[in-house]
């Protein structure tokens, strides 16, 4: 056994303080970039009130995640740079036996972060009258004032649209007037679909026998994409179309033209209802 003491190396820097400063500075640089540069460009854009709300929410989520992401990434890089194995030797690291203070802080901070997001999400969902998602047949919150009801009918493999306040006419394309509150009633005639009007920030499940209500107010004249967002069979990927947001006058012209075109067909449609139960098995039964 040697009585010689090991040679003392250079003193270790205060890693905690150094790492903390790097993280804090990085966060202070990144946060304004996330909020003011990245945020406004986050999806789904500003095609409607709920879409703009989703951009805000995505910005908030990204901003709250940024310090956490930087903490993890910077720590990883810091550890790789500073705590790497020295060349030519195998060094046993010091035993780490836990750090109650650090662990408690971590649990409290991340717990508070997640809980605050849950509260924020719930409040925003109700503030935004469902925030573009379906709220079922009886939404908890409903925008006040006049609303244009439009029914979205999904079937394998197309969406059609019915306007109950225009004689119940049904159309193959969706057109909406700008700056008007729209009350969408989403349902299905067969299997589960999902109505996704991307630029409007609307995504609502279309379930057979269910009236899934969602609200949206398109805020600019535009063309928007309509997709099915629920795997529904062979042509699910082709269940794709474009809708239009137009001026009030253009909407009135279009809807009256549709009424004229489909006058004969409208007569054979079932009376407008929030859901339909078409006989699905006439041949198979």
């Amino acid at each position, binding site marked *: 056994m040697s009585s010689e003491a090991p040679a003392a190396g250079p003193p270790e820097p205060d890693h905690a303080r150094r790492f903390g400063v790097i993280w804090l500075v990085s966060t202070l640089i990144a946060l304004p970039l996330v909020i003011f540069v990245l945020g406004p460009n986050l999806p789904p854009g500003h095609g409607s009130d709920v879409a703009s709300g989703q951009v805000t929410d995505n910005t908030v989520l990204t901003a709250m995640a940024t310090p956490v992401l930087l903490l993890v990434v910077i720590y990883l890089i810091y550890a790789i740079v500073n705590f790497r194995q020295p060349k030519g030797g195998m060094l046993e690291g010091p035993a780490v036996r836990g750090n109650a203070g650090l662990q408690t802080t971590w649990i409290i901070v991340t717990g508070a972060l997640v809980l605050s997001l849950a509260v924020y999400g719930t409040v925003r969902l109700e503030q935004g009258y469902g925030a573009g998602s379906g709220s079922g047949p009886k939404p908890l919150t409903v925008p006040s004032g006049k609303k244009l009801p439009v029914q979205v009918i999904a079937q394998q493999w*197309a969406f059609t649209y019915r306007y109950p306040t225009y004689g119940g006419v049904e159309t193959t394309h969706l057109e909406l007037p700008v700056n008007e509150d729209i009350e969408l009633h989403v349902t299905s005639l067969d299997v589960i679909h999902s109505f996704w009007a991307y630029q409007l920030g609307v995504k609502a499940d279309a379930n057979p026998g269910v009236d899934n209500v969602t609200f949206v107010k398109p805020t600019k004249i535009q063309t928007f994409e309509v997709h099915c967002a629920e795997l529904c*069979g062979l*042509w699910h990927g082709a269940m794709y179309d474009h809708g239009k947001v137009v001026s009030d006058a253009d909407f009135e012209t279009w809807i009256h033209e549709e009424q004229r075109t489909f006058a004969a067909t409208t007569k054979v449609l079932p009376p407008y209802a929030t859901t339909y139960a078409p006989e699905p*098995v006439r041949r198979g039964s």
Partner: protein
Amino acid sequence: MSTTARKLAGVIGAVIVLGVLIGLYISSWAVSAPNPVTATPVAGATVPTTSLTLQTDAAVGPQESPNHPDWVSYLVKTGGRWVRSTIFTVPANSLVHVTVYQFDGDSGLRNPFLSAVQGTVGGTEMVDGKAVNHINPEEASHTFVVPQLGVFAPLPGVPEEAKNQCEVGPCDPATMAHRTIEFTFRTGKKGRYRWQCFVPCAAGTYFNFGGPMQTLGYMDGFIDVV
């Protein structure tokens, strides 16, 4: 090489070969499609025009579908005979005249709105020689719909009481009960456009929309505009 190593190599080799074979089988199944049929040019037309002659059968029969002879299906006439294909090649910016011999009975539309004729020249179709812009949704047997082109052509079914109904395809329009539906649509720009039947006509499947409704080559296909 030890015996154990040889056995291990054999097992690994067999697993690799089996995996490749399964992969080839699945991929060939996934991309399998009937051969395309080119529409027949119509001579003497003032604008480029082609024609497609189709029939719909309640049971396609073993000749055209040995694995699923009882599936409902479209057939197309090419080279003087009926074949099972639902991929049709037509010219861009042209008219396509479609004649459908409808041998199947009615099933009814789940959505009556689809009983309206849309997107055809004149907004009508001829049903047994009579121009109509919609049919009775209860009488629909099938539809020929190309959603991206806005073409909706509902096909009424053969009445139940009709005599000499076709049991198994290919059916003979000269001798068997049928409806004749004719319509013309414009093709527009080049591209691949899917078409489908909207009538839940696949008897015995989930919501009558399984089997031939979910398999390319029976009640769904493509219009290849070239």
